[in-house]
């Protein structure tokens, strides 16, 4: 299926308007079966690749490329298109300089689950294809079939828009998605102390590497609240002045301090999170960070009745407050 998709992507890329100066797409990573994002010139179309292991979100790269001239073509799955839309709402991206090649996405593979499930050594794998409900991995003339449900990225099961809403060309048949918060509702049924001990257990593992913040396409602030070096500290800065610097976060690595960090990080994504799952994939400790994001999504959807398709950003919309 994906070799077909790849052919179509290449075909569409050859038909791009003349003023497109960059293509943001996936290329094969050396020595691993997955794809990584790369900014290509229009004459490098042959390097493009695509498979269910092309899971990264190009929105941030597109945002950085907006500083250059010319149009940018981008290959976007459903979640990538949502992130692009959000950045467009926040005026970080100009839509008329963007050419979106939308891909109707069946879901991506969780690389961690994949590495455990596959029996070959990773550099030996020649191709990974999704056919029907099975992932077919080929290496050394052998092939292994893995059910897709075993290796799918968990958040893709709850994807509300697998097909981009806004695109210039679409590859593949449009897919239906639905809003599904069953996992969050399940978790909310636990009683308070159980929930607290679950999250304390999760956040006691956090090493505060800030990778989740760094990789998020929507965390683009140049000065971040959680950075210790927000304000200039020189060897000449007196201790009293340093102590008087505003500090929201503690610097310890205790579980409750880590929790405060994550609560603040997630609060900044209320009504904005695209659900691409980059934070969870980047997390070296494999924490379930999307659970918090999805809880906020549920609140935004149920309490404020706000849908992410609206043109006004959630933060500046005020007529959606509940009564009282």
């Amino acid at each position: 299926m994906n070799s077909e998709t790849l052919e179509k992507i290449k075909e569409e890329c050859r038909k791009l308007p003349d003023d497109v100066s960059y293509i943001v797409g996936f290329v094969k990573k050396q020595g691993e079966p997955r794809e990584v994002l790369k900014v290509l010139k229009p004459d490098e179309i042959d390097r493009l690749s695509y498979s269910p292991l092309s899971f990264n979100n190009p929105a941030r790269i597109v945002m950085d490329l907006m500083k250059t001239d010319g149009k940018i073509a981008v290959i976007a799955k459903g979640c990538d298109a949502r992130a692009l839309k959000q950045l467009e709402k926040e005026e970080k991206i100009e839509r008329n300089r963007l050419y979106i090649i939308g891909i109707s996405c069946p879901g991506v593979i969780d690389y961690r689950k994949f590495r455990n499930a596959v029996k070959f050594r990773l550099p030996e794998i020649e191709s990974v294809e999704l056919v029907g409900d099975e992932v077919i991995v080929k290496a050394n003339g052998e092939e292994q079939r893995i059910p897709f449900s075993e290796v799918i990225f968990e958040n893709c099961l709850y994807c509300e828009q697998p097909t981009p809403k806004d695109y210039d060309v679409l590859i593949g048949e449009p897919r239906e998605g639905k809003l599904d918060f069953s996992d969050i509702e399940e978790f909310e049924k636990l009683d308070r102390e159980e929930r607290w001990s679950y999250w304390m257990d999760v956040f006691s593992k956090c090493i505060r590497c800030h990778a989740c913040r760094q990789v998020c396409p929507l965390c683009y602030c140049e000065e971040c609240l959680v950075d210790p070096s927000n304000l200039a500290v020189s060897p000449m800065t007196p201790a009293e002045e340093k102590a008087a610097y505003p500090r929201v976060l503690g610097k310890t690595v205790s579980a409750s301090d880590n929790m405060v960090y994550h609560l603040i990080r997630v609060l900044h994504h209320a009504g904005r999170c695209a659900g691409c799952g980059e934070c969870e994939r980047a997390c070296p400790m494999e924490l379930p960070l999307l659970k918090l994001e999805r809880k906020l999504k549920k609140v935004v959807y149920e309490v404020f009745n706000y849908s992410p398709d609206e043109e006004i950003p959630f933060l500046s919309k005020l007529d959606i407050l509940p009564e009282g």
Partner: protein
Amino acid sequence: MEFDPKIITFACNWCSYAGADLAGTSRLKYPDNVKIIRVMCSGMVNPGWVLRAFRQGADGVVIAGCHPGDCHYTVGNYYAKKRYILLKELLKFVGFDDERFKLLWASASEGKLFAEEMTAFTEKIKEMGPQEKLRRKIE
């Protein structure tokens, strides 16, 4: 010894702080556990401050602002309410006692209401006992 809670109140300069002031000048009593921090508008209260207050050992946090529609800056209290709902839901989700966090609308003329609400909230916190979940511990 009886438990003596610490309650941090972020009161907006134009309504709630004046309301608290009125409660004082009209000699209405409310518990001295309530420590008021004056902010220019309830809309400037960063959810991080609330979390930091809990980290530093507050047993309850109140954000007090003008009634909807009365904000000195037109819409500041609507932002406050939006942030309040999001943070409260999130605190509930992670299993924190979200009753310790409260939003109060009190205008400059409602000194009585301010004193009553603060007394009731302090009583509730006293019943609940000290806040140990987010308090910074020496490890």
